[in-house]
């Protein structure tokens, strides 16, 4: 391990770099139109698949980039922070998150962008999300056992499938491109005659 390659996250330099990376992140999200709750929610009514397209092209770009950088010996992915795979809380949390996403019209990152561009709905969403986070902390004693149910530690597809990382990264690209094509070809609903006001 040589974590010295990375900026110390607890240093002022680490916080400054985090701030700048955050600015770039927020900028790109807003470029894509993700400060708008209506645009984000539109995927669930099959009117606009930008959420799918942006998210999966980002994921595929970074997956291929990580593989390239690792092949060139520039980074070691095992040194990066990787969340553990814990099946029960990840799947239940995902389902609950999806319900909140369509109900609230944002996720945490896009809500920050929505607030930055003047969205009052984004501000109210963020107040709710702050309360929900504290609610989770308050409910911790009830959830403690659930939170470790199905803990597989740090698990990766290449390890699980016994495939080289490059093959999985390229599979992500193929899956993403197929999903974009299929979504526009079969899922997209034409705009209804009643235009939104």
């Amino acid at each position: 391990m040589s974590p010295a390659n990375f900026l110390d996250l607890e240093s002022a330099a680490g916080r400054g770099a985090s701030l700048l990376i955050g600015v770039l992140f927020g900028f790109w999200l807003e470029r894509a139109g993700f400060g708008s709750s209506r645009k984000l929610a539109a995927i669930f009514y099959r009117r606009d698949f930008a959420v799918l397209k942006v998210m999966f092209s980002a994921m595929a770009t970074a997956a291929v980039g990580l593989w390239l950088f690792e092949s060139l010996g520039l980074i070691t992915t095992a040194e990066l922070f990787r969340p553990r795979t814990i099946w029960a809380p990840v799947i239940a949390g995902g389902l609950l998150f999806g319900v909140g996403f369509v109900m609230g019209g944002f996720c945490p990152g896009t809500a920050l962008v929505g607030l930055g561009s003047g969205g009052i709905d984004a501000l109210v969403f963020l107040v709710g999300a702050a309360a929900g986070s504290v609610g989770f902390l308050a409910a911790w004693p009830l959830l403690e056992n659930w939170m470790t149910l199905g803990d597989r530690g740090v698990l990766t597809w290449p390890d699980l499938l016994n495939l080289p990382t490059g093959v999985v990264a390229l599979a992500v690209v193929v899956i993403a491109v197929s999903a974009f094509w299929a979504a526009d070809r079969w899922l997209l609903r034409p705009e209804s005659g009643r235009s939104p006001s």
Partner: protein
Amino acid sequence: MKTPLRRDAAIGPEPHWNPYWSGIGLGLVLLLSFVVLGTGLGASGGLARAAATVCDGIAPGCFEDHPYAASWFDGSSPLLHYLVSMGAGVLLGGLLSAWIAGRMRVRVERGPRIGRNGRLLLALCGGVLVGFASRMAGGCTSGQALSGGALLLPGSWAFTAAVFAGGFAVAPFFRKEWEA
């Protein structure tokens, strides 16, 4: 004289950028984060720390013995965590982009069939669910779905699939909130 940087409001806001280019740009930002910080992007973690800080301000020491959150207060304020800085950056970046594009507008976005207060109530409730669920899943669409997805982690892919499954399953109940 208008600045060349900023869109003239009179001609209306700039169109959004192509989703594929936006996605590739986001992917490069994510890569930058991995290379420079050794970790991916995150939004919910900073928000949770800010919320916990507010609670600690109201009831000092309330997370002192908390098995999950006590470490956030170890030695210094949770506000000094790098995810809080990143979250502040996301807000600023969104502001900058919206300003350049002429998209800055105080607004409550909603479909034509719901009132302003109804929409804000749903935004609040949706936020509560998302805040709770992000902590349960160990991250949100940024930290878990996007960053973990790019790291090829099955748990992150399962989270992503569950988000879409949950959203599509209940979307018919919220049609009035968004659709004509």
